[in-house]
Structure formats: structure tokens, C-alpha cells
């Protein structure tokens, strides 16, 4: 059981290399933070892992099975789910039904157990009061949680969260962090892409940093924030001096 392993992934769109030779691995039960400036290739890397793009080069292994180039639904059923930065709820369905789709199809469950699972997941992410509202009519923070719930309902062991906390206020972020810890404690591993340093620093076991599609640093949070290259590319002088102080 090695969790997720990416070997030298590259993704090119024409002449543009969005991701270049990125390798990393995710151990079971670990939270891996991923940071980098806008356009660094974080979302593209996620889309390669999840099967939306087929990487131009490189291999992805999930529990030592090569999943490169598989269809997204197959990868999802093997235990890898993603929440999108651009939220795409099934708007004409209720929150409950949205999550149910994940449980039915991603989890491969029958209707009865799927409904029970859906209830549990909705409870876990704290969406119970919205369960029977149309997902198109709920607020942004609730939609972020809905994305998370739909991914959780598939029963995936590895969750990729693409800016799942963007647009939340500090109080909502605290709640979201609490939910992520609960999820981790239930034995799942996470990759968290986030611009909010407080989130990344607070929750990650390890951090990798992307810039212009390449991995420029990897390590424990404290190591990464003091890394020269990272400061130059992403954090800026001020924040690092604050951290040192």
C-alpha cells in the first residue's frame, strides 16, 4: 500500500508545458499541501491524476496499479476523488441527490445503502439543514462543502481538494479545517491545493511547491516556507520575514 505515486508527469497543451516532470508520492493517511502561484499547473496536475487529461508523459500509480490514461469514472471507483475549483453541482437536483450520485455511481452502491451513506456524509460535512434544498440555490460555502460531500460519498480513500476553501471567511475556514481533520482521522489521505497559507500550514504534513509547471520544493511546512526559491516564486519577502520573526 503506497497510496498515490506520480512519476515524472508532464502535460503539454501545444507548445505550452503546463506541467513538467513532476514526481511525488502520497502516503496513506497523509495530508499533502500543494501551493504555487496562479497558473503554476496545480489544477492541470490534478486533472491528469484524475483522468480528465491524459498526461503527455509520465505514469501515475494508485496502490501500485498504473492508472495513467484511465477514464475518470474508473479512477474514481478505484478510490480517487476530486473536488473542483470551479464548483459544478448538479443544479436541478437537491443537495441530497447530488451526494447520492457520488454514492451510487462512484461508490457502486445499491439505492438503500447509498441513501444511508449519503445521510452520513451530509451529516459529517454539516449540510444537514440544506439536504432537501436545490443545490443551485445554496450559498458558496455550502456548495464548497457539497463538492467535498460528493467526493466523500464515492468512498474514495484519496481526495484531491482544489481550492476547496476559496471565498470562505475565517470562521468558515476554521469549520472547514475541522471537517478535513475529521476526514483524515477516518483514515483517508488528502492533497490540498490552497492559496490561504494559514490553511496549508496548519493542516499539511508535507508541502510541495509548483512554479511554471515544475516542482521547485518539497518538504515539511517549516522547511518549505524558508526555502529561497519558494519565497522568490510565491510567498514574497514579507511573509517569510514575518514567519522568521
Amino acid at each position, binding site marked *: 500500500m503506497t497510496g498515490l505515486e506520480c512519476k515524472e508527469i508532464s502535460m503539454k497543451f501545444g507548445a505550452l508545458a503546463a506541467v513538467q516532470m513532476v514526481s511525488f508520492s502520497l502516503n496513506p493517511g497523509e495530508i499533502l499541501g500543494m501551493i504555487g502561484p496562479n497558473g503554476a499547473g496545480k489544477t492541470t496536475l490534478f486533472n491528469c491524476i*484524475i*483522468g*480528465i487529461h491524459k498526461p503527455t508523459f509520465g505514469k501515475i500509480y494508485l496502490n501500485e496499479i498504473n492508472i495513467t490514461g484511465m*477514464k*475518470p*469514472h*474508473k479512477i*474514481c*471507483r478505484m478510490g480517487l*476523488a*476530486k473536488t*473542483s475549483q470551479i464548483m*459544478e*453541482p*448538479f*443544479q*436541478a*437536483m*437537491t443537495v441530497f*441527490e447530488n451526494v*447520492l*450520485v*457520488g454514492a*451510487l*455511481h*462512484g*461508490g*457502486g452502491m*445499491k*439505492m438503500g445503502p*447509498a441513501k444511508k451513506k449519503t445521510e452520513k456524509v451530509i451529516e459529517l460535512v454539516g449540510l444537514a439543514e440544506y439536504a*432537501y434544498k*436545490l443545490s443551485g440555490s445554496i450559498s458558496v460555502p455550502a456548495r464548497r462543502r457539497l463538492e467535498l460531500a*460528493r*467526493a466523500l460519498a*464515492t468512498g474514495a480513500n484519496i481526495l484531491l481538494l482544489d481550492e476547496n476553501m476559496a471565498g470562505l471567511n475565517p470562521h468558515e475556514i476554521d469549520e472547514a479545517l475541522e471537517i478535513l481533520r475529521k476526514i483524515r482521522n477516518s483514515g483517508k489521505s488528502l492533497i490540498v491545493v490552497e492559496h490561504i497559507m494559514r490553511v496549508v500550514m496548519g493542516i499539511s504534513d508535507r508541502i510541495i511547491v509548483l512554479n511554471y509547471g515544475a516542482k521547485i520544493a518539497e518538504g515539511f511546512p517549516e522547511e518549505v516556507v524558508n526555502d529561497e526559491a519558494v519565497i522568490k516564486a510565491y510567498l514574497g519577502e514579507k511573509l517569510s520575514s514575518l514567519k522568521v520573526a
Partner: protein
Amino acid sequence: MNYRTDRIILIIFLLISTAVAFLPYFVQSEYLLRLITVVIFWIGIAGCWNMMSGYTGYIDFGPVVYFGIGSYVAAIAMTKYMVPFFPSLFLSGLISAVIAFFIGIPTLRLKGAYFAIATFAFAEAMKQISLEFDRTFKVSFFQGSDGITLPISGHDNSFFFYCILPVTFVVMLTHYFIEHSKFGYGLKAINEAETAAEISGVNTTANKLRAYATSAFFLGLYGAIEAYWITYITPSDVFNVQKTVQMVIMTLLGGMGTFLGPIVGATFLTLISESLGTRFVEYYLIMIGGIIIVTILILPSGIIGTLKIRKRLRFI
């Protein structure tokens, strides 16, 4: 919102269906019986379109092709191979579904208008093939524009009533199944956001293909029944794009992706064109056009569709 309305609507639907099944014993007028049969026929056909396009949002603009294939399979099986009606009927559905499966693999990759154009083109191509095949290959198989005359059935209207009613009944039950099953949630998810559906574990290709082939199977049945009913088919008749337009409009009037939509839409349009057509022979098409425009303006999501949104009903 609540699951109880679903049950109530299903029970009402079952009761009405049962009542309708006894109609031939009470209706004396042959005209009336034929009209009812036509209404049920169109409910089913609009339902076939709704099953695929209504739920997945993939606008199929060539469903008539499976209707036509059904007609031709039945006609050729009955005249050339002397197969009795009911086996030919089944064969029609089966062959339609199989063709739909193989056509669906490439076409269902297309999105939006491109899918509509591809399916429309396939329907027109099939029409041309059945018109020109015999002349090109010097055989007598499709019989080109001469058409095929089927054996005269000698059955009365009630026979066809009892052929069409069960098929429509099954089509509508399939709708109910779609609304409440894993398969249906998959289709609706595809309609809303296909990529999100795919990463949530929905096998989008398989689900779309399944819906497409199921819809084609039933359309094939209807094609075969109509061929046997009218006893004479030509390519320009059975592959007529007007049939496509009619099933699309009926479903849009009723409400796409709803259970009652095809029923309401098909009944509404058939009855209106029948009652206006007999009274205003010259102008009735203009009037129907006006009615359709006004209905869509007032009820943009169709009669049932708008009701469903306004009343926030989960299923009707």
C-alpha cells in the same frame, strides 16, 4: 420534495392505464378509438425521445431513424422471410437497438448542436440508403421509392390499440424507473454537468449509450406496429423528419425530463390538431403554430416542466 407524491402519481397513472385498457369495450365509434390509439402512440414516441434527450440533455434530432428502421425490419421480415408479426416486431426493436448502440459510440462523443446535426444526418442518410440501395446494387431488398406493401392484417383498430398500449405503458414505466434509479441519477447528472458526473464515478458513455439504445428499441417497436397498421411504407414516409419534429415539440410542450411531460404534450398537441384540423381545414396549421409559440412563451419549460419548477416538485 417528498417521496409520497411520487407514489400517488404512479398509482394514478396505473389506474388510468388500467381504465384505458378497457376502452375498446365501451367506445363504439371507430373514429374515437382510432384517435385514442393515435394519442397513445404519440405519447409513447414522445416518451422515447424524452427518455434519451429529456434526461441527458443530448438533443437527438434523428430519432425517426430508429422508427424507420423498425418499419423496414418488420416489412422485410414479413414479406421476404414470411416471419409472423410478433416475432418481426421483436426483431425490429432489437435491430434498432443494436444499430443505435453502434451509432451511439461515435455520435455520443459530440456535444450540443453537433450531436443534433450528426443524428439528423444519420436519419437522412438512412432514408437515402433505403431509397437508392436496390438501384445501386441491382437487388430487390428495400424496394426504393416503390415502398413495401405488407400483408394486409385484417385486424381491426382494437388489435392495434392493444399492440400500442402495452408498449407505451412500458415506455412510461421506464420513465418512472429512470426517475428513481441509479441509472436515472446518472443521466440527470450528465445533463447537469458531464465532467462533474464523470469524476463522481458516473460511467457517462455507458449510461448515454444505454439510454440511447433503450429509446431506439421502443422506437423500433412503434415503427413496426405502424408499418403493419398502415400496411404500406416508403422511405420518405417512415424516415420523415416531420416525425422527429413532432416528438421534439410534444416533449418540449409537456416538459423535457419529466414523467408527465410526454403524456401531456402528446395528448395536448394531438387533440388540438385533431379538433382544429376538422374545423379549420385551411388554417389549422397556422393556429397550431400560434398556440405552440404562446405556450412556450408563457410556460418556457413546458406545461409540466414549469409546474414542476414553480411548485418545486421533485417528480411528476
